[in-house]
């Protein structure tokens, strides 16, 4: 059976090393925080200038001066620190974050990421920090459904949407399979309710089916 969004978040959380510095971007990836063990020592970074971000703020905790990258109110954990935007993006761009987790429109066989623009001619372009995160973190994990609503795959030989970053994705977590992207191509790590044959058929690209090592 394919995975729910919650199950995907749980699987991603499992793959984050203890003590890692992690950026969860905005939207779906922020659900990963719910599945991190409290004793994992994972420290969350938010691009608007904070390490040690805690869970979403509720009720009296809400402070307009303390938000995440999605501009939602959050809390502060012991050991947190604040810094300005240039320092925050220096931290990202300089390769200091261990993992960042992002959504995607498309990921290519070589790890290219497209997640900021569908290239629609009437769209208003808006990129935020996505391009900085894509090229900055030591590992970029993507979370997405493997197929679009029209059934077309989002893991593709080459992105047709405008790129966010080149050759930057290392893992792709989807509802039906997890993939590792490496120098030798895309390897299937695990499948959920779909056979490798069906995956290979529906994805118009070569896949390495051996277990990820």
């Amino acid at each position: 059976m394919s995975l729910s969004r919650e199950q995907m978040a749980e699987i991603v959380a499992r793959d984050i090393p203890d003590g890692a510095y992690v950026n969860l971007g905005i939207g779906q990836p922020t659900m990963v925080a719910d599945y991190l063990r409290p004793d994992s020592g994972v420290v969350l970074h938010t691009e608007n200038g904070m390490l040690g971000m805690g869970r979403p703020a509720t009720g009296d905790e809400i402070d307009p001066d303390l938000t995440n990258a999605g501009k939602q109110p959050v809390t502060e954990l012991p050991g947190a620190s604040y810094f300005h935007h240039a320092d925050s993006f220096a931290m990202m761009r300089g390769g200091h974050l261990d993992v960042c987790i992002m959504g995607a429109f498309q990921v290519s066989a070589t790890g290219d990421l497209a997640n900021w623009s569908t290239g629609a001619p009437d769209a208003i372009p808006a990129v935020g920090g996505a391009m900085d995160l894509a090229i900055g973190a030591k590992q970029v994990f993507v979370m997405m459904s493997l197929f679009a609503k029209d059934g077309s795959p989002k893991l593709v030989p080459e992105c047709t949407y405008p790129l966010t970053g080149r050759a930057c994705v290392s893992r792709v977590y989807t509802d039906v399979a997890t993939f590792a992207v490496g120098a030798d191509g895309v390897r299937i790590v695990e499948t959920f309710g779909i056979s490798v044959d069906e995956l290979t058929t529906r994805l118009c690209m070569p896949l390495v089916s051996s277990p990820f090592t």
Partner: protein
Amino acid sequence: MTALIMEAAEAVAAVKDGDTVLVGGFGMAGMPVELIDALIAHGAGDLTIVSNNAGNSDTGLAALLAAGRVRKVVCSFPRQADSWVFDGLYRAGKIELEVVPQGNLAERMRAAGAGIGAFYSPTGVGTPLAEGKESRVIDGREYVLEFPIRGDVALIRAHVADRMGNLVYRKTARNFGPVMATAAAVTIAQVSSIVDVGELDPEVIVTPAIYVNRLVSV
């Protein structure tokens, strides 16, 4: 020179038609709302606004845009659920937009403040936002050449200032404030309170007074 303490209206009179104005804030956190309102009342137009977003709802930057004072917006993320004012102007062809990846936006302002002529950034390589820009391979990695973004005026919000202009911020409202303060010819900071010189611990000052020209207590 040591910062001058002013009313908002007097402070923003430094903005002239055609100026580039750096506006702090990430969403509402750190947004200098009272300074923007004063700028709207002041009336300067043909402005280039550099800010992370392009206004939300009908207040603040959105109201400045709605008043027709802005020729161009330089930002990382104009499109939001409540950015209808910008969206309308943009679709009507009434406003220019330069989208800059957020880190390049911050770093380009940092470069302006730090006297750096240009820098090679890995952000945006291979994307449409690097089209037409110089690139260069350094140690096997490709970079895009990015140039400084200078402001004529910066409008920022901090938490507490001393009378010299030293600033501290509060939580993630710090965001672009310290960078923009370095990048503008005139920096105007609105703060929640102004204390006497010597009341801020020198170890914790985030923006030294040298970067602050005008203080507005709101």
